[in-house]
């Protein structure tokens, strides 16, 4: 065997999983061959081969003993390779790994700092029980090493050691040593200390940033690399300056970082600015203005992922300052080859920044996206035009009408859906929409489009002269209709049309009801048909009272229109993963979908149900009005619950009502408090989580009842309230309402 044979290794095993035993045996033979061991080069080539197999997923753990022997070498690369091998298999072969520890401990005392650091790092990476007792002493020695390279490794080693024994007490001496090392001259050691402390003290709320530490960090900022800067800025969020003077000193120190070459530093600085200056809106506005340039630059970066992240951040900033980017609208025009996730974001931004000057060009641009090859993008563009139409209806209606002429199924459907939403929000566009719908000859083919068209026909049948004929077409084809949502909509629409144009509709409504009651297999549809049938039996006027409701809701446009939200609403999620992965977006779309007329009959059957004003059972002195607002998801609730602090805790002085959970939920809903979750049955401790909105704040609450038989509990309910943003008065009002509801339930013999 010659040297060249040994080196052509990587191509041989095309299928690493087959014949692996043979390969391992052969390697074992080679590694234990004294001739190979004597030839440094050949020996190393075999070791490289082992690593290659390992990375391909072949199990070479059987070679552990031979590899441990190979670690006794002066060649650093060979050492690195062997260490890599040992870290991978140490947890599988803990008994053998112990043999390697001696070599590693010896290396920790090597004169070369690189070897010391390397050995220490790898020793800390061994993930097996019993490690801490071996590594503690080298780590402590490493913390005092004269080479910064070793100190860096040792500091993180403390965190690794802690994670190996998560349930033991925190070693106070190490924590103190780490706090002391924050003063280390090497910037990386400093940051590693923060990182390690954060991990070790996780259960106690992480590393403490007090005044001396905060000022020390601020002074060292310029020595740090960009990654460290970004992390330090995040840590500094925990610090509250004592006075305004101190605050402005800090801000002026950080000023230059707002325009850092690294987007992540600029954004982290902005977040800190917004957080620190929460009481100084002018400072916040100035910071936003100054970061707009780096943010825009990120939106134009070469990497599409950076561009995407930049856009998400711009979107958040625009929630408070929609005008900030209005003059730069051209930056948000979509390039042909951009991925769709970027295009979607850009369209959302374009909708938000429209103003009188740029509306013509933005619409022109959006129009050209409506014919995009991807139907999803085309529909999103049409929906975007629909959103703009709420402010600039005339121009948008022209475009939308023009799109119908293209006779593309997906475009027609999207346009009709947009029309439906538009009519609901801007009643003044109704006449124009009805005219267009009448002139539109081909009907949408997908179920969302059909529902939208049926809703329009039913709601505004008197303005569309051909409505009954279109409706008849659907009723004739009802046997082929599969979607139950469309069937429901068809029913509601026919009944509504019957009320405004009885002569033309009576016959087909009869056929429709007959078919649905006699032959329909979908129980929901059948029940709905029966319901309408019974309502119709009570007479036309009765039916009209029940079925017809408001045809539009102009007040909605105030809600969904562009409103400048306070910065505090989004500052806490700025520069976090949430907005990029979509939960923040879900929240926003939930607001829209909750306010949209989804055509659900429940709303129409109870006209004005949303307007019913509910006062709390026994009127309290402090008038506060609660509202449910958009639903909160469990994840959002959980995240906010963990993020916020308890502002108010009170023992209510009576046990929980022994009513059925449904009753409790319904009663709370009556006073606009939503129940999110509660402990089922009579389990102890019993808990319930509630939320509501009032005077511009979101209130989260927890009801807790300890075991009544427990010695130190009075068996009484305890309520803990968290709120964002804080408002003590609202909390008092909320607790009073909650208390009265629970008391009422306790009294009622249900």
């Amino acid at each position, binding site marked *: 065997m010659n040297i060249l044979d040994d080196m052509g290794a990587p191509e041989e095993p095309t299928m690493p999983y087959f014949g692996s035993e043979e390969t391992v045996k052969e390697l074992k033979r080679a590694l234990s061959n004294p001739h190979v061991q004597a030839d*440094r*080069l050949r020996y190393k080539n075999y070791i*490289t081969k082992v*690593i*290659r197999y390992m*990375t391909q997923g072949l199990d070479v753990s059987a070679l552990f003993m031979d590899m441990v022997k190979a670690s006794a070498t002066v*060649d*650093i*690369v060979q050492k*690195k*390779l062997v260490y*890599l091998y040992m870290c991978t298999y140490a*947890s599988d072969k803990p008994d053998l790994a112990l043999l390697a520890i001696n070599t590693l401990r010896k290396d920790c005392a090597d004169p*070369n*700092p*690189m070897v010391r650091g390397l050995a220490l*790092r790898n020793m800390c990476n061994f*993930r097996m029980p019993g490690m801490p007792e071996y590594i503690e002493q080298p780590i402590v020695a490493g913390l005092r090493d004269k080479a910064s*390279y070793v100190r*860096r490794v040792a500091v993180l080693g403390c*965190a*690794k050691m802690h*994670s190996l024994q998560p349930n033991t007490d925190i070693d106070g001496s190490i924590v103190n040593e780490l706090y002391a090392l924050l003063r280390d001259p090497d910037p990386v050691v400093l*940051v590693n200390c923060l990182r390690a402390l954060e991990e070790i003290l996780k259960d106690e709320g992480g590393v403490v940033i007090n005044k001396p530490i905060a000022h020390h960090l601020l002074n060292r900022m310029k*020595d740090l*690399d*960009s*990654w460290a800067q*970004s*992390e330090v800025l*995040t840590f500094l969020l925990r610090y509250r300056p004592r006075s305004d003077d101190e605050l402005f000193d800090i801000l002026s120190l950080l000023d*230059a970082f707002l*325009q*850092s*070459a690294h987007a*992540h530093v600029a954004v*982290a600085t902005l977040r800190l600015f917004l957080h620190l200056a929460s009481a100084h809106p002018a400072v916040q506005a100035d910071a936003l203005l100054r970061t707009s*340039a780096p943010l*825009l*630059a990120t939106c*134009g970066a070469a*990497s*599409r*992922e*950076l561009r995407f992240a*930049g856009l998400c951040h711009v979107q958040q900033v625009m929630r408070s300052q929609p005008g900030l980017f209005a003059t730069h609208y051209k*930056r948000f*025009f979509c*390039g*042909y*080859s951009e991925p769709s*996730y970027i295009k979607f974001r850009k369209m959302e931004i374009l909708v938000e920044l429209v103003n009188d000057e740029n509306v013509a060009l933005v619409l022109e641009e959006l129009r050209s996206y409506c*014919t995009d*090859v991807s139907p999803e993008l085309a529909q999103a563009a049409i929906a975007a035009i629909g959103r703009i139409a709420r402010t600039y209806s005339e121009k948008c209606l022209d475009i939308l009408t023009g799109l119908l002429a293209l006779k593309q199924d997906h475009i027609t459907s999207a346009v009709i859906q947009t029309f439906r939403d538009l009519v609901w929000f801007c009643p003044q566009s109704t006449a124009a929409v009805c005219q267009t719908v009448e002139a539109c000859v081909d009907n949408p083919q997908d179920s969302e489009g059909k529902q939208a068209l049926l809703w329009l026909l039913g709601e505004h049948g008197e303005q569309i002269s051909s409505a009954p004929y279109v409706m008849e077409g659907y009723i004739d084809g009802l046997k082929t209709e599969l979607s139950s949502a469309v069937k429901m909509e068809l029913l509601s629409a026919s009944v509504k049309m019957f009320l405004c144009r009885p002569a033309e509709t009576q016959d087909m409504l009869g056929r429709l009801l007959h078919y649905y009651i006699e032959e329909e297999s979908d129980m929901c549809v059948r029940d709905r048909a029966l319901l309408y049938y019974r309502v119709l039996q009570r007479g036309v006027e009765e039916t009209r009272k029940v079925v017809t409701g408001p045809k539009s809701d102009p007040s909605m446009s105030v809600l969904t229109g562009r409103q400048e939200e306070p910065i505090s609403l989004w500052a806490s999620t700025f*520069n*976090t*993963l949430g907005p*990029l*992965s979509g*939960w923040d977006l879900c929240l926003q779309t939930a607001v829209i979908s909750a306010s949209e007329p989804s055509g659900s009959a429940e709303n129409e059957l109870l006209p004005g149900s949303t307007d019913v004003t509910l006062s709390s059972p026994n009127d309290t002195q402090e008038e506060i009005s609660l509202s449910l607002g958009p639903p909160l998801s469990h994840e959002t609730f959980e995240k906010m619950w963990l993020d916020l602090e308890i502002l108010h805790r009170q023992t209510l002085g009576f046990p929980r009502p022994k009513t059925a959970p449904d009753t409790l939920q319904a009663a709370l809903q009556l006073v606009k408090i939503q129940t999110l979750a509660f402990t089922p049955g009579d389990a102890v401790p019993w808990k319930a989580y509630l939320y509501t909105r009032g005077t511009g704040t979101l209130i989260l609450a927890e009801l807790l009842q300890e075991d009544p038989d427990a010695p130190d509990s009075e068996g009484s309910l305890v309520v803990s309230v968290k709120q964002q943003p804080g408002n003590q008065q609202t909390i008092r009002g909320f607790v009073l309402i909650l208390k009265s509801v629970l008391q009422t339930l306790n009294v009622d013999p249900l």
Partner: protein
Amino acid sequence: MIHSLFLINNGGDLFLEKHWKSVISRSVCDYFFEAREKAVEPDNVPPVIRTPHHYLINIYREKIFFVSVIQTEVPPLFVIEFLHRVAETFQDYFGECSETTIKDNVVIVYELLEEMLDNGFPLATESNILKELIRPPTILRSVVNTITGSSNVGETLPTGQLSTIPWRRAGVKYTNNEAYFDVVEEIDAILDKSGTTVFAEIQGVVDACVKLSGMPDLTLSFMNPRLLDDVSFHPCVRYKRWESERVISFIPPDGNFQLMSYHISAQNLVAIPVYVKQNISFFETGSSGRLDITVGPKQTMGKTVECLVVTVHMPKVVLSANLNATQGTYNYDPVTKILVWDIGKLNPQKFPNLKGSLSLQSGAPKPEENPSLNIDLKIQQLAISGLKVNRLDMYGEKYKPFKGVKYVTKAGKFQVRT
């Protein structure tokens, strides 16, 4: 912070994994594969994917997905930028960042990943510090190493770690002291059918290669610094002096680095170097279409346009193209539906033209949208914004350095709508 890294190729093979904390099973990538499948095109995979226990943040570069696994809340830009830094480091070390080079250099890749992150935190990412820790492979050195058995690892610690200026190592010595600056500008533009500019901006960078002994203190000034409205600098630049005097004063890192980057977005300042006259049409009947493209110089400031390439993403129904180019060569790939016309140098006397017919799938409806053209080009010795370096002065050292400035203009995202 960054828990693990998986490298996945275009075909969905996971070919490298590295864990900085406990080992996370490969099965976490299933969420990524799900998103990958849903996205159809690899470009469309969203950068942040949420899974029940982790976040997956990925970037797609050179046909490789760099998928990182995150367990705690992190600033997303931080991770994305870091992943790009990893990819750039591979490119720097191996000349290109591809699956083959990564597999061939797997040992160095692991060494690099080990030094760049520890316990999931970024450690050494500056290229000139990394290169002292781990020497990049060169053909000559790998031959020498094979014969002598010596390694590619620096035997001593990087001296930069001891210097008072973190980005520069102490005791640098060169026999030839030289400082070169490259001003590179990319034009991002969208032109509409009639050739009017819908949107245009310039993204510029100044790359430097400084090999000077000792601790030189440099000052670079521009003839027209007011052009630059949006600049960001390497940490070595003294920002206060830029704010007050509009000069760039700095102690440079040793070797290659990016001194500054800037944007010019005022549209009247962005010159469009070429014009494109195009006519692409599809006929209602006969399953065919016509294509006629002419490219000519517009505002080139007397310089020659080179490496001119026109790329057209044709609609799916286009089966083949029968064209005639007066200059350069064209190639239509019927699988990817991409037409590439490689023109080369733009001849200012006789404008290159590409003309002919397209044949469509018979029976298919005529495409509703005309394809856009992407233009690629290069102009040597010109910064299209007109930015010019005035002078470079050196203080703090006695010798006389050799100085040079080069200008290049390239097309970035340059697109013509039809």
